[in-house]
């Protein structure tokens, strides 16, 4: 079953800005999908429409088969949202925030209290259940928003940059938590600017730019489209000039560091052979950028160039 079906969705704001220009997107049940795009691309508008915080201009949205035009309440009951901005009642106690949210979804208080203990414990917030939300750290507030979004056990969880401003340790523990709830059956849509996060967590990726979906495929298929990767090689000995290796474009960054663009069809074996032949030994190697990041930048740049071309 499809968790989400979007057809020809458009949104034009009152100030005339066309945030969405007709997007189509399907997310299968159980999927972990990344929705990526530069700032202002239309990600948050799309999420706003799914959660009814933004009114669409035209198009169709179905959540687990429920049309948001005709079965909005049922569609909403399937959804959980972790928004980009902190939108907690900062003067309320942690436990009350999640239990009240459960109540809005029609969950009796007794059940809500049990669930609150489970989710707050899993997100390491149970000890702070009687604290006022204002007193929590930034990372704790983000985790509280996740607990709040899960309290009615939604079938589709939407996270809009959930780890923004969160330190790496907490971020990784949040990743483990999200992997677990996805493994337990919750469909997840994630927007993030940390592309390493998307590559690590998501099996599907949709890239949105200028209000249009410009890529929508399995993560593995998308990464395969990356025709050129840039590697950084650290040499054991210093070199004074750039070694010539036919078929590879090498750049000397400093006496012990070389940067090289490698086409995926060519591979990297020949490069190592050539360097070894010249008496150069590589002590370590890394991708210059995260692979998804590199692909993302290329796709967005290409799209921008096409738009610029059309304008001319």
């Amino acid at each position, binding site marked *: 079953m499809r968790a989400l079906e979007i057809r020809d969705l458009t949104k034009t*704001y009152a100030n005339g800005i066309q945030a969405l220009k007709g997007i189509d997107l399907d997310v299968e049940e159980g999927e972990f999908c990344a929705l990526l795009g530069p700032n202002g691309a239309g990600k948050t508008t799309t999420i*706003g429409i799914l*959660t*009814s*915080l*933004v*009114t669409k201009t035209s198009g169709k949205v179905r959540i687990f088969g429920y049309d948001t035009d005709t079965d*909005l*309440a*049922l569609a*909403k*009951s399937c*959804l959980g*949202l972790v*928004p980009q*901005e902190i*939108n*907690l*009642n*900062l003067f309320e106690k942690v436990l*009350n925030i999640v239990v*009240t*949210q459960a*109540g*809005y*979804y*029609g*969950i*009796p*208080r007794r059940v809500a209290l049990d669930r609150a203990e489970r989710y707050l414990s899993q997100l390491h917030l149970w000890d702070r259940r009687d604290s006022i939300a204002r007193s929590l750290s930034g990372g704790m507030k983000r985790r509280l928003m996740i607990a*709040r979004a899960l309290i009615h056990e939604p079938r589709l969880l939407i996270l809009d940059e959930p780890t923004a401003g969160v330190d790496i340790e907490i971020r990784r523990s949040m990743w483990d938590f999200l992997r677990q709830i996805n493994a337990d059956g919750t469909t997840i849509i994630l927007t993030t600017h940390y592309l390493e996060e998307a590559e690590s967590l998501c099996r599907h990726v949709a890239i949105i730019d200028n209000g249009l979906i410009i890529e929508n495929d399995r993560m593995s298929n998308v990464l395969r489209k990356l025709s050129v990767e840039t590697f950084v090689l650290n040499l054991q000995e210093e070199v004074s000039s750039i070694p010539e290796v036919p078929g590879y474009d090498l750049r000397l960054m400093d006496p012990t560091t070389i940067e090289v663009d490698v086409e995926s069809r060519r591979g990297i074996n020949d490069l190592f052979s050539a360097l070894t032949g010249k008496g150069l030994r590589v002590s370590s190697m890394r991708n210059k950028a995260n692979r998804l990041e590199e692909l993302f930048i290329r796709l967005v740049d290409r799209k921008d160039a096409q738009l610029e071309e059309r304008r001319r």
Partner: protein
Amino acid sequence: MTGPVRLKEDLTGFATLISKEYTRIVRIWVQTLVPPAITMTLYFVIFGSLIGRRIGEMDGFGYMQYIAPGLIMMSVITNSYGNVVSSFFGAKFARHIEEMLVSPMPEAFILLGHVAGGVIRGLLVGALVTLIALFFTDLKPVHPFVTLSVVFLTAVVFSLAGMINAIFAKKFDDISIIPTFVLTPLTYLGGVFYSISLLPEFWQKVSLANPILYMVNAFRYGILGVSDIGIGQAYVIILSFIIGLYFFALVLLKRGIGIRE
């Protein structure tokens, strides 16, 4: 509403919202309950006890006794209005209104839940001011049903009005303009401190255009048995306001005015 499929869940949501509003009122009692009690005590001392002694009787009652129902009503009006406007606009401003908006709870229950909060605070403050009034004068309702129904319905009217104000408000100034420039003048000119029979005929007719006059007088009729206007007419006006404001507020919420982009 979403039909019988989710009615049980929606009622749970409604009860949750009322409980949240009540908890808020009680939690910040220093802001919600104490100020009206102090203000009304000052009114009783200054207007009732000190100045009132020189005014003498009004409609056959001591001045203190005459203004007590009006002062109770004034506190109910300002507090029911103020509770909804501050609670809903505060949630809008801090964006935790989104907790409700993303949930399947119907707009009607969001509206009624906030109105219930306003009514609860209005009646709590009204009861407190009544207790204070009893230190200064005797109040034994002549028509208990009229007293209770009018105070309840008036609290509903001003809770709905507060909701509409909060829906349209974009900044904090917007939630103080109506209470300052509309509500307070209408309340002061709504027969709280005097009988309109004291006014020249022209101003008596002008006063009849003030809806608060009907509410204050109907409540005074319930307690003292005297009124400047017909009680039936007062019920018609109060109920008309409730129906009109309810549907207006509901349409605004359904259209997402002020709450959805």
